[in-house]
């Protein structure tokens, strides 16, 4: 009985760490949970513990090794573990930019969430589906998914709600609804500032930077872009660093600071595209804002 209590207690601790975005801590807790389940637990407990650990591994970029077992769990068709397995696989593919595969597994996760009547999991599925649609430039369809996700999440500060607000805000900016986009992005940033590790502020700050560029508020754009760059560097998030350097360069270029723009574009080329020597010159001459998707 005491061991059973330990398992649930550990699993709960792991879930809390996952929800808070503390993935290194979650991985450690969930690994202990898996070890216990393998020795003493039922197959269902093993699957649940494994799925939680897989969530942490995937978010930490170590997800490939988990895929085989997640598929096995999905095939066993236990309702809860199947949702977790499908969601994790979808998230793995999303992070690895295989959006069609991500969409396929998200649909499976969504069906399980619906059959279980879990609003929070349905919200997560809608958000993930929105991400894959947005990455495919299907902005209107993504907006509908994010709106549904927002309706389904509890109207209280959380990491999940903060991320949905950011995603929806960016969609509105892309569609030219700057005021609505701004309100959502600011709400997202404030919420994530309160409830999540600092790195989670990076996406809304990047999106705000983009919005301020679009509306010609360059000083605000520089402020948000610079802070986003700092956070991205601290967290070693290369995709965010790339986007921040590009946005800062674009802002400086648009406000006529040619040498400042060149510094950012040169750094972008040097650190991420070393073979593309033409890149800074190209970005100085061609405005690619309408080509770039910050969420792809």
């Amino acid at each position, binding site marked *: 009985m005491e061991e059973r209590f330990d398992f649930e207690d550990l699993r709960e601790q792991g879930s809390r760490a996952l929800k808070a975005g503390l993935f290194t801590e979650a991985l450690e807790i969930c690994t202990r949970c898996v070890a216990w389940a393998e020795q003493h637990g039922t197959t269902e407990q093993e699957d649940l513990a494994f799925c939680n650990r897989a969530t942490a591994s995937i978010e930490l970029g170590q997800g490939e090794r988990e895929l085989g077992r997640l598929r096995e769990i999905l095939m066993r068709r236990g309702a809860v573990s199947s949702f977790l397995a499908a969601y994790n696989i979808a998230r793995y593919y999303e992070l690895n*930019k295989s959006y069609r595969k991500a969409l396929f597994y998200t649909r499976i996760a969504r069906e399980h969430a619906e059959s279980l009547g879990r609003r929070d999991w349905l919200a997560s599925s809608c958000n993930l589906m929105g991400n894959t649609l947005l990455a495919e430039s299907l902005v209107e369809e993504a907006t509908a998914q994010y709106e549904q996700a927002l309706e389904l999440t509890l109207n209280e500060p959380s990491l999940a709600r903060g991320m949905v607000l950011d995603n929806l805000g960016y969609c509105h900016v892309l569609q030219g609804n700057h005021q609505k986009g701004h309100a959502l992005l600011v709400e997202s940033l404030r919420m994530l500032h309160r409830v999540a590790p600092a790195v989670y502020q990076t996406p809304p700050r990047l999106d705000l930077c983009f919005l301020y560029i679009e509306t010609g508020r360059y000083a605000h754009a520089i402020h948000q872009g610079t802070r986003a760059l700092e956070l991205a560097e601290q967290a070693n998030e290369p995709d965010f660093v790339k986007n921040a350097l590009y946005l800062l360069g674009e802002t400086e270029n*648009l406000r006529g600071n*040619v040498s400042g723009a060149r510094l950012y574009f040169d750094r972008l080329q040097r650190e991420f*595209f070393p073979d593309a020597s033409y890149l800074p010159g190209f970005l100085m*001459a061609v405005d690619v804002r*309408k*080509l770039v*998707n910050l969420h792809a």
Partner: protein
Amino acid sequence: MSTAGKVRQIQLVGQKIRQLRKENKLTQVELSQRLGIQQSDLSRMEQGEYRVSLDTLFRILAEFKVGIGEFFEDVAKESITPRDAQLVQKFKDLPENAQREVEDFIAFKHSQGSRDHSDPG
């Protein structure tokens, strides 16, 4: 730059991608495979309807590395950079006689430049 100008640019980039693909006798399927994207996405990109990550954008540019400057010359020509716009605005803000002086100076620099080119010695 106006919204119409930006839309024109994205369409031009799409058209350029399409033009180069055809010049290289590549089908959409072949090029999309090289780029690691879906054929339907490349098609939408060529029509100026598809936004991509910076990685994908620069992968496309890298694929066309031969004469990339020349390739995007038309696009760049249509771009009025912020510096260009600023210069034009500053010029317009000058009084008429000062504008004439600037024009004379530009003409002088041009004549100097053409002498430099024609007389390397």
